[in-house]
Protein backbone atom coordinates (compact mmCIF):
# COMPACT_ATOMS: atom_id res chain seq x y z
CA UNK A 1 0.00 0.00 0.00
CA UNK A 2 1.31 3.40 -0.88
CA UNK A 3 2.20 5.67 1.94
CA UNK A 4 -0.39 8.27 2.76
CA UNK A 5 0.72 11.79 1.89
CA UNK A 6 1.26 14.32 4.63
CA UNK A 7 2.08 18.01 4.85
CA UNK A 8 5.39 17.18 6.51
CA UNK A 9 6.57 15.13 3.52
CA UNK A 10 7.38 18.54 2.07
CA UNK A 11 10.21 19.06 4.58
CA UNK A 12 13.48 18.20 2.86
CA UNK A 13 15.88 15.63 4.22
CA UNK A 14 13.44 14.47 6.86
CA UNK A 15 11.64 11.21 7.56
CA UNK A 16 8.97 11.89 10.14
CA UNK A 17 8.48 8.91 12.42
CA UNK A 18 4.71 8.85 12.30
CA UNK A 19 2.14 6.23 13.26
CA UNK A 20 2.46 4.52 9.89
CA UNK A 21 6.24 4.26 10.08
CA UNK A 22 5.95 3.18 13.70
CA UNK A 23 3.85 0.22 12.58
CA UNK A 24 6.00 -0.53 9.56
CA UNK A 25 9.28 -0.22 11.44
CA UNK A 26 8.32 -2.12 14.56
CA UNK A 27 10.81 -4.90 13.75
CA UNK A 28 13.68 -2.49 13.10
CA UNK A 29 13.10 -0.66 16.34
CA UNK A 30 12.65 -3.80 18.42
CA UNK A 31 15.86 -5.17 16.91
CA UNK A 32 17.61 -1.96 17.97
CA UNK A 33 16.12 -2.21 21.46
CA UNK A 34 17.51 -5.73 21.77
CA UNK A 35 20.99 -4.24 21.42
CA UNK A 36 20.65 -2.71 24.88
CA UNK A 37 21.77 -6.12 26.20
CA UNK A 38 25.35 -7.20 25.87
CA UNK A 39 24.54 -10.84 25.08
CA UNK A 40 22.39 -9.71 22.18
CA UNK A 41 25.07 -7.37 20.89
CA UNK A 42 27.49 -10.29 20.81
CA UNK A 43 25.03 -12.57 19.07
CA UNK A 44 24.31 -9.91 16.48
CA UNK A 45 27.98 -9.25 15.82
CA UNK A 46 28.70 -12.98 15.51
CA UNK A 47 26.19 -13.43 12.69
CA UNK A 48 24.23 -10.36 11.72
CA UNK A 49 21.97 -11.84 9.04
CA UNK A 50 21.05 -14.79 11.23
CA UNK A 51 20.30 -12.61 14.24
CA UNK A 52 18.05 -10.34 12.19
CA UNK A 53 15.79 -13.26 11.27
CA UNK A 54 14.24 -13.04 14.72
CA UNK A 55 12.63 -9.69 14.00
CA UNK A 56 10.18 -10.19 11.18
CA UNK A 57 11.86 -7.67 8.91
CA UNK A 58 11.21 -7.12 5.21
CA UNK A 59 14.13 -7.85 2.85
CA UNK A 60 14.55 -4.09 2.33
CA UNK A 61 14.75 -3.49 6.07
CA UNK A 62 17.26 -6.30 6.55
CA UNK A 63 19.35 -4.93 3.72
CA UNK A 64 19.32 -1.39 5.13
CA UNK A 65 20.47 -2.66 8.52
CA UNK A 66 23.24 -4.84 7.11
CA UNK A 67 24.48 -1.96 4.96
CA UNK A 68 24.12 0.52 7.81
CA UNK A 69 22.06 2.71 5.53
CA UNK A 70 20.67 4.91 8.29
CA UNK A 71 18.53 7.12 6.10
CA UNK A 72 16.91 4.09 4.51
CA UNK A 73 16.23 2.64 7.96
CA UNK A 74 14.41 5.86 8.87
CA UNK A 75 12.46 5.77 5.65
CA UNK A 76 11.39 2.19 6.36
CA UNK A 77 10.17 2.96 9.85
CA UNK A 78 13.24 3.10 12.04
CA UNK A 79 13.43 5.85 14.61
CA UNK A 80 16.65 7.70 15.28
CA UNK A 81 16.61 7.09 19.05
CA UNK A 82 16.49 3.40 18.26
CA UNK A 83 18.84 3.23 15.28
CA UNK A 84 21.39 5.16 17.35
CA UNK A 85 21.67 2.01 19.46
CA UNK A 86 22.91 0.17 16.38
CA UNK A 87 25.46 2.91 15.84
CA UNK A 88 26.59 2.57 19.45
CA UNK A 89 26.90 -1.19 19.00
CA UNK A 90 29.28 -0.49 16.12
CA UNK A 91 31.23 1.80 18.40
CA UNK A 92 30.24 5.04 16.69
CA UNK A 93 29.45 8.33 18.35
CA UNK A 94 26.18 10.00 17.60
CA UNK A 95 27.96 12.69 15.67
CA UNK A 96 29.42 10.02 13.41
CA UNK A 97 25.90 8.83 12.59
CA UNK A 98 24.66 12.35 12.04
CA UNK A 99 27.50 13.03 9.62
CA UNK A 100 26.76 9.78 7.81
CA UNK A 101 23.09 10.66 7.39
CA UNK A 102 23.94 14.09 6.04
CA UNK A 103 26.54 12.75 3.63
CA UNK A 104 29.40 14.73 5.11
CA UNK A 105 32.53 13.84 6.98
CA UNK A 106 32.39 13.91 10.73
CA UNK A 107 34.83 16.78 10.76
CA UNK A 108 32.75 18.86 8.37
CA UNK A 109 29.63 18.10 10.35
CA UNK A 110 31.30 19.06 13.62
CA UNK A 111 32.54 22.32 12.08
CA UNK A 112 29.05 23.12 10.84
CA UNK A 113 27.65 22.59 14.35
CA UNK A 114 30.34 24.75 15.93
CA UNK A 115 29.49 27.50 13.48
CA UNK A 116 25.88 27.47 14.64
CA UNK A 117 24.41 24.49 12.82
CA UNK A 118 22.61 24.04 9.53
CA UNK A 119 20.63 27.13 8.58
CA UNK A 120 16.90 26.80 8.11
CA UNK A 121 17.12 29.19 5.16
CA UNK A 122 16.56 27.19 2.00
CA UNK A 123 15.88 24.08 4.07
CA UNK A 124 12.24 24.50 4.93
CA UNK A 125 10.51 23.02 1.93
CA UNK A 126 10.88 20.87 -1.15
CA UNK A 127 8.20 22.84 -2.94
CA UNK A 128 9.39 26.39 -2.37
CA UNK A 129 7.52 27.20 0.85
CA UNK A 130 10.54 28.97 2.17
CA UNK A 131 8.89 31.92 3.86
CA UNK A 132 9.44 31.83 7.62
CA UNK A 133 6.57 30.57 9.72
CA UNK A 134 3.97 33.23 10.38
CA UNK A 135 4.27 32.31 14.03
CA UNK A 136 7.90 33.23 13.91
CA UNK A 137 7.14 36.52 12.23
CA UNK A 138 4.29 37.31 14.56
CA UNK A 139 6.28 36.41 17.60
CA UNK A 140 8.58 38.77 19.31
CA UNK A 141 8.51 41.24 22.10
CA UNK A 142 6.83 44.58 22.30
CA UNK A 143 9.83 46.32 20.80
CA UNK A 144 9.37 44.74 17.40
CA UNK A 145 5.61 44.59 17.38
CA UNK A 146 5.03 47.64 15.23
CA UNK A 147 7.85 46.86 12.83
CA UNK A 148 6.55 43.34 12.57
CA UNK A 149 3.11 44.55 11.64
CA UNK A 150 4.34 46.79 8.94
CA UNK A 151 6.34 44.00 7.46
CA UNK A 152 3.66 41.41 7.77
CA UNK A 153 1.05 43.26 5.76
CA UNK A 154 2.76 43.45 2.41
CA UNK A 155 4.00 39.91 2.89
CA UNK A 156 0.59 38.50 3.43
CA UNK A 157 -0.62 40.30 0.34
CA UNK A 158 2.11 38.79 -1.69
CA UNK A 159 1.26 35.41 -0.40
CA UNK A 160 -2.43 35.60 -1.13
CA UNK A 161 -1.63 36.92 -4.58
CA UNK A 162 0.54 33.95 -5.17
CA UNK A 163 -2.18 31.62 -4.14
CA UNK A 164 -4.53 33.08 -6.68
Amino acid sequence: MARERHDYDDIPGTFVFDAERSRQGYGINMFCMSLMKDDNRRAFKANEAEYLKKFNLTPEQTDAILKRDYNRMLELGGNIYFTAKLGATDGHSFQHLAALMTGSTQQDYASMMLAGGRSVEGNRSRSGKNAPSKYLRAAGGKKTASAGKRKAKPKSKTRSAKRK
Partner: protein
Amino acid sequence: MPAIGAALDNGKTEEPYWKRIFSGFEKSQEWMRGTKPDVAIIVYNDHASTFSVEMIPTFALGCAAEFPPADEGWGPRPVPVVKGHPALASHIAQSVILDEFDLTICNKMEVDHGMTVPMNLLFGKVEKSGHWPCPVIPLAVNVVMYPPPTGHRCFMLGRAIRKAVESYPDDLKVVIFGTGGLSHQISGPRAGLINSKWDKNFLDNLSNNPQKLVKIPHIDYMREAGAEGIEMVMWLIMRGALDDKVEEVYRFYTVPASNTAVGHIILANRGRGGARKSAAKVKRPAGKLKRAAAQAKVERIRG
Protein backbone atom coordinates in the same frame (compact mmCIF):
# COMPACT_ATOMS: atom_id res chain seq x y z
CA MET B 1 21.48 15.78 26.14
CA PRO B 2 23.11 12.41 26.21
CA ALA B 3 26.37 14.19 25.39
CA ILE B 4 25.76 16.66 28.21
CA GLY B 5 25.13 13.74 30.55
CA ALA B 6 28.34 12.08 29.46
CA ALA B 7 30.27 15.32 29.98
CA LEU B 8 28.82 15.54 33.50
CA ASP B 9 29.48 11.93 34.33
CA ASN B 10 33.02 11.97 32.97
CA GLY B 11 34.09 15.13 34.72
CA LYS B 12 34.44 17.24 31.58
CA THR B 13 32.45 20.19 32.82
CA GLU B 14 35.57 22.34 33.15
CA GLU B 15 36.70 21.81 29.57
CA PRO B 16 36.17 25.02 27.57
CA TYR B 17 33.60 23.56 25.17
CA TRP B 18 31.42 22.29 27.99
CA LYS B 19 32.18 25.00 30.53
CA ARG B 20 30.41 27.49 28.27
CA ILE B 21 27.29 25.38 28.62
CA PHE B 22 27.49 24.40 32.25
CA SER B 23 28.32 27.89 33.45
CA GLY B 24 24.98 28.97 31.97
CA PHE B 25 23.27 26.90 34.63
CA GLU B 26 25.11 28.22 37.67
CA LYS B 27 22.68 31.03 38.35
CA SER B 28 19.77 28.67 37.96
CA GLN B 29 21.25 26.25 40.43
CA GLU B 30 21.63 29.10 42.84
CA TRP B 31 18.02 30.07 42.28
CA MET B 32 16.95 26.50 42.86
CA ARG B 33 18.91 26.30 46.10
CA GLY B 34 17.22 29.47 47.27
CA THR B 35 13.80 28.27 46.21
CA LYS B 36 14.01 24.96 48.06
CA PRO B 37 11.06 23.25 46.40
CA ASP B 38 9.17 20.55 48.27
CA VAL B 39 8.42 18.73 45.02
CA ALA B 40 9.47 19.02 41.38
CA ILE B 41 7.16 17.96 38.57
CA ILE B 42 9.36 17.17 35.60
CA VAL B 43 7.90 17.04 32.11
CA TYR B 44 10.28 15.11 29.87
CA ASN B 45 10.45 12.51 27.17
CA ASP B 46 11.61 8.96 27.38
CA HIS B 47 14.17 7.98 24.74
CA ALA B 48 13.46 4.34 24.03
CA SER B 49 14.26 3.41 27.62
CA THR B 50 11.04 2.72 29.51
CA PHE B 51 8.55 2.84 26.67
CA SER B 52 10.26 1.45 23.57
CA VAL B 53 7.77 1.07 20.71
CA GLU B 54 5.66 -1.56 22.42
CA MET B 55 3.64 1.01 24.31
CA ILE B 56 3.56 4.70 23.45
CA PRO B 57 1.50 6.64 25.98
CA THR B 58 0.91 10.27 25.10
CA PHE B 59 1.07 11.41 28.73
CA ALA B 60 2.41 9.08 31.44
CA LEU B 61 2.54 10.19 35.06
CA GLY B 62 4.95 8.53 37.48
CA CYS B 63 3.09 7.68 40.67
CA ALA B 64 5.72 5.32 42.10
CA ALA B 65 7.66 5.82 45.33
CA GLU B 66 10.91 5.74 43.40
CA PHE B 67 12.24 5.75 39.86
CA PRO B 68 15.54 4.01 39.16
CA PRO B 69 17.81 5.48 36.48
CA ALA B 70 17.46 3.40 33.31
CA ASP B 71 20.26 1.43 31.71
CA GLU B 72 20.38 3.02 28.27
CA GLY B 73 22.89 0.52 26.99
CA TRP B 74 25.98 1.77 28.79
CA GLY B 75 24.83 1.14 32.36
CA PRO B 76 22.60 3.49 34.38
CA ARG B 77 23.87 7.03 34.88
CA PRO B 78 25.73 7.35 38.19
CA VAL B 79 23.02 9.32 39.95
CA PRO B 80 20.80 8.43 42.91
CA VAL B 81 17.45 6.73 42.52
CA VAL B 82 14.83 9.45 42.07
CA LYS B 83 12.31 9.50 44.91
CA GLY B 84 8.72 10.14 43.93
CA HIS B 85 5.81 11.82 45.70
CA PRO B 86 3.11 9.17 45.29
CA ALA B 87 0.50 11.04 47.32
CA LEU B 88 0.64 14.22 45.27
CA ALA B 89 1.09 12.26 42.03
CA SER B 90 -2.03 10.19 42.55
CA HIS B 91 -3.92 13.31 43.57
CA ILE B 92 -2.85 14.95 40.31
CA ALA B 93 -3.82 11.86 38.32
CA GLN B 94 -7.27 11.78 39.83
CA SER B 95 -7.81 15.48 39.35
CA VAL B 96 -6.62 15.80 35.75
CA ILE B 97 -8.36 12.64 34.55
CA LEU B 98 -11.64 14.05 35.82
CA ASP B 99 -10.66 17.22 33.96
CA GLU B 100 -10.66 15.03 30.83
CA PHE B 101 -6.93 14.44 30.39
CA ASP B 102 -6.55 10.69 29.92
CA LEU B 103 -3.23 10.06 31.60
CA THR B 104 -1.44 6.76 31.77
CA ILE B 105 -0.49 5.95 35.35
CA CYS B 106 2.95 4.43 35.91
CA ASN B 107 3.44 2.68 39.22
CA LYS B 108 6.71 1.26 38.00
CA MET B 109 8.97 3.28 35.78
CA GLU B 110 12.63 3.86 35.08
CA VAL B 111 13.84 7.30 34.08
CA ASP B 112 16.50 8.07 31.50
CA HIS B 113 18.80 10.97 30.67
CA GLY B 114 15.83 12.98 29.44
CA MET B 115 14.94 13.50 33.08
CA THR B 116 18.12 13.04 35.07
CA VAL B 117 20.29 15.37 32.98
CA PRO B 118 17.95 18.34 33.47
CA MET B 119 17.90 17.46 37.17
CA ASN B 120 21.69 17.68 37.30
CA LEU B 121 21.69 20.94 35.39
CA LEU B 122 19.33 22.55 37.88
CA PHE B 123 20.17 20.72 41.08
CA GLY B 124 23.90 20.37 40.43
CA LYS B 125 26.01 17.29 40.76
CA VAL B 126 24.69 14.67 43.15
CA GLU B 127 26.76 11.63 44.03
CA LYS B 128 25.20 8.27 43.40
CA SER B 129 25.32 7.59 47.13
CA GLY B 130 23.68 10.94 47.88
CA HIS B 131 20.15 12.27 47.58
CA TRP B 132 18.37 14.54 45.15
CA PRO B 133 17.19 17.67 46.98
CA CYS B 134 13.48 16.93 46.63
CA PRO B 135 10.98 14.30 45.50
CA VAL B 136 10.07 14.31 41.83
CA ILE B 137 6.93 13.50 39.86
CA PRO B 138 7.88 12.50 36.32
CA LEU B 139 5.49 13.28 33.49
CA ALA B 140 6.62 11.52 30.32
CA VAL B 141 5.26 12.90 27.06
CA ASN B 142 5.39 11.14 23.72
CA VAL B 143 7.34 13.35 21.37
CA VAL B 144 9.10 10.47 19.63
CA MET B 145 6.26 9.18 17.49
CA TYR B 146 4.33 11.68 15.44
CA PRO B 147 1.95 13.11 16.37
CA PRO B 148 2.83 14.30 19.84
CA PRO B 149 0.06 16.12 21.68
CA THR B 150 -0.62 19.60 20.33
CA GLY B 151 0.86 22.63 22.00
CA HIS B 152 -2.60 23.70 23.04
CA ARG B 153 -3.30 20.34 24.66
CA CYS B 154 -0.02 20.56 26.52
CA PHE B 155 -0.76 24.05 27.75
CA MET B 156 -4.20 23.01 28.98
CA LEU B 157 -2.76 19.98 30.75
CA GLY B 158 -0.41 22.36 32.55
CA ARG B 159 -3.41 24.34 33.71
CA ALA B 160 -5.11 21.19 34.94
CA ILE B 161 -1.98 20.16 36.82
CA ARG B 162 -1.86 23.52 38.49
CA LYS B 163 -5.45 23.19 39.56
CA ALA B 164 -4.66 19.75 40.98
CA VAL B 165 -1.65 21.05 42.90
CA GLU B 166 -3.70 23.89 44.31
CA SER B 167 -6.39 21.55 45.56
CA TYR B 168 -3.94 19.29 47.35
CA PRO B 169 -4.48 19.49 51.12
CA ASP B 170 -0.86 20.19 52.05
CA ASP B 171 0.77 23.48 51.24
CA LEU B 172 3.76 22.56 49.14
CA LYS B 173 6.22 24.57 47.18
CA VAL B 174 6.20 23.02 43.75
CA VAL B 175 8.42 23.70 40.78
CA ILE B 176 7.63 22.37 37.35
CA PHE B 177 10.29 21.70 34.72
CA GLY B 178 9.43 21.70 31.06
CA THR B 179 12.29 19.99 29.23
CA GLY B 180 13.19 18.94 25.73
CA GLY B 181 15.18 20.37 22.93
CA LEU B 182 14.97 23.77 21.47
CA SER B 183 15.60 23.66 17.73
CA HIS B 184 17.39 20.54 16.65
CA GLN B 185 17.22 17.79 14.11
CA ILE B 186 19.28 14.68 14.63
CA SER B 187 17.80 12.44 11.94
CA GLY B 188 18.09 12.26 8.17
CA PRO B 189 19.96 14.37 5.63
CA ARG B 190 18.78 17.62 7.27
CA ALA B 191 20.37 16.68 10.62
CA GLY B 192 22.21 19.54 12.29
CA LEU B 193 19.48 22.10 11.75
CA ILE B 194 19.46 24.90 14.32
CA ASN B 195 17.19 27.93 14.21
CA SER B 196 18.26 30.42 16.84
CA LYS B 197 15.81 33.03 15.66
CA TRP B 198 12.94 30.61 16.24
CA ASP B 199 14.28 29.62 19.63
CA LYS B 200 14.67 33.18 20.84
CA ASN B 201 11.25 34.04 19.65
CA PHE B 202 9.83 31.03 21.38
CA LEU B 203 11.49 32.00 24.65
CA ASP B 204 10.25 35.59 24.33
CA ASN B 205 6.71 34.44 23.86
CA LEU B 206 7.02 31.81 26.52
CA SER B 207 7.58 34.63 28.96
CA ASN B 208 5.19 37.23 27.64
CA ASN B 209 2.71 35.79 25.27
CA PRO B 210 2.25 32.03 25.57
CA GLN B 211 -1.13 32.21 23.84
CA LYS B 212 0.77 32.81 20.61
CA LEU B 213 2.71 29.63 21.09
CA VAL B 214 -0.26 27.36 21.71
CA LYS B 215 -1.46 27.98 18.17
CA ILE B 216 1.70 26.78 16.45
CA PRO B 217 0.91 23.70 14.36
CA HIS B 218 3.27 20.73 14.37
CA ILE B 219 4.33 21.32 10.77
CA ASP B 220 5.77 24.70 11.75
CA TYR B 221 7.81 23.24 14.59
CA MET B 222 9.19 20.57 12.29
CA ARG B 223 9.98 22.89 9.38
CA GLU B 224 11.51 25.64 11.47
CA ALA B 225 12.97 23.89 14.49
CA GLY B 226 13.74 20.44 13.11
CA ALA B 227 12.00 17.09 13.20
CA GLU B 228 13.05 16.63 16.82
CA GLY B 229 12.45 20.29 17.65
CA ILE B 230 8.83 19.34 18.10
CA GLU B 231 9.84 18.42 21.64
CA MET B 232 9.31 22.09 22.43
CA VAL B 233 5.62 21.41 22.98
CA MET B 234 6.62 20.01 26.36
CA TRP B 235 7.62 23.48 27.53
CA LEU B 236 4.01 24.51 27.15
CA ILE B 237 2.89 22.12 29.89
CA MET B 238 5.19 23.98 32.25
CA ARG B 239 3.93 27.32 30.98
CA GLY B 240 0.29 26.33 31.36
CA ALA B 241 0.91 25.62 35.02
CA LEU B 242 2.01 29.20 35.67
CA ASP B 243 0.17 32.47 35.89
CA ASP B 244 -0.63 34.30 32.68
CA LYS B 245 1.80 37.00 33.72
CA VAL B 246 5.10 35.80 35.01
CA GLU B 247 8.44 37.20 35.96
CA GLU B 248 11.36 36.04 33.86
CA VAL B 249 14.00 35.34 36.47
CA TYR B 250 16.75 34.16 34.18
CA ARG B 251 17.45 33.01 30.66
CA PHE B 252 20.35 31.28 28.99
CA TYR B 253 20.76 30.16 25.38
CA THR B 254 23.72 28.81 23.48
CA VAL B 255 24.59 26.88 20.34
CA PRO B 256 25.71 24.24 20.06
CA ALA B 257 25.80 21.52 22.62
CA SER B 258 26.83 18.55 20.56
CA ASN B 259 23.95 18.42 18.06
CA THR B 260 21.45 20.84 19.52
CA ALA B 261 20.78 24.30 20.81
CA VAL B 262 20.55 24.46 24.58
CA GLY B 263 18.76 26.99 26.58
CA HIS B 264 16.69 27.44 29.63
CA ILE B 265 14.49 30.01 31.22
CA ILE B 266 13.25 30.42 34.75
CA LEU B 267 9.80 31.88 35.11
CA ALA B 268 8.15 32.63 38.38
CA ASN B 269 4.64 33.58 39.19
CA ARG B 270 4.62 37.14 40.41
CA GLY B 271 4.24 36.89 44.08
CA ARG B 272 1.31 38.32 45.82
CA GLY B 273 1.54 39.84 49.24
CA GLY B 274 5.27 39.65 49.15
CA ALA B 275 5.54 36.00 48.30
CA ARG B 276 7.81 35.31 45.38
CA LYS B 277 6.84 32.71 43.06
CA SER B 278 8.72 31.23 40.38
CA ALA B 279 8.84 28.76 37.82
CA ALA B 280 11.63 26.90 36.66
CA LYS B 281 12.60 25.63 33.57
CA VAL B 282 14.76 23.10 32.78
CA LYS B 283 17.43 22.13 30.85
CA ARG B 284 15.76 23.18 28.62
CA PRO B 285 13.49 24.96 30.70
CA ALA B 286 11.90 24.29 33.67
CA GLY B 287 9.00 25.92 34.71
CA LYS B 288 8.16 26.35 38.02
CA LEU B 289 5.00 25.80 39.28
CA LYS B 290 3.50 27.02 42.06
CA ARG B 291 1.42 25.63 44.44
CA ALA B 292 -1.00 27.11 46.45
CA ALA B 293 -2.56 26.49 49.68
CA ALA B 294 -5.98 25.46 48.73
CA GLN B 295 -7.62 26.53 51.89
CA ALA B 296 -6.08 29.91 52.07
CA LYS B 297 -6.41 30.45 48.37
CA VAL B 298 -3.10 32.07 48.40
CA GLU B 299 -0.66 31.10 45.81
CA ARG B 300 2.86 31.02 46.74
CA ILE B 301 4.28 29.70 43.83
CA ARG B 302 7.67 29.39 43.58
CA GLY B 303 9.44 27.13 42.27
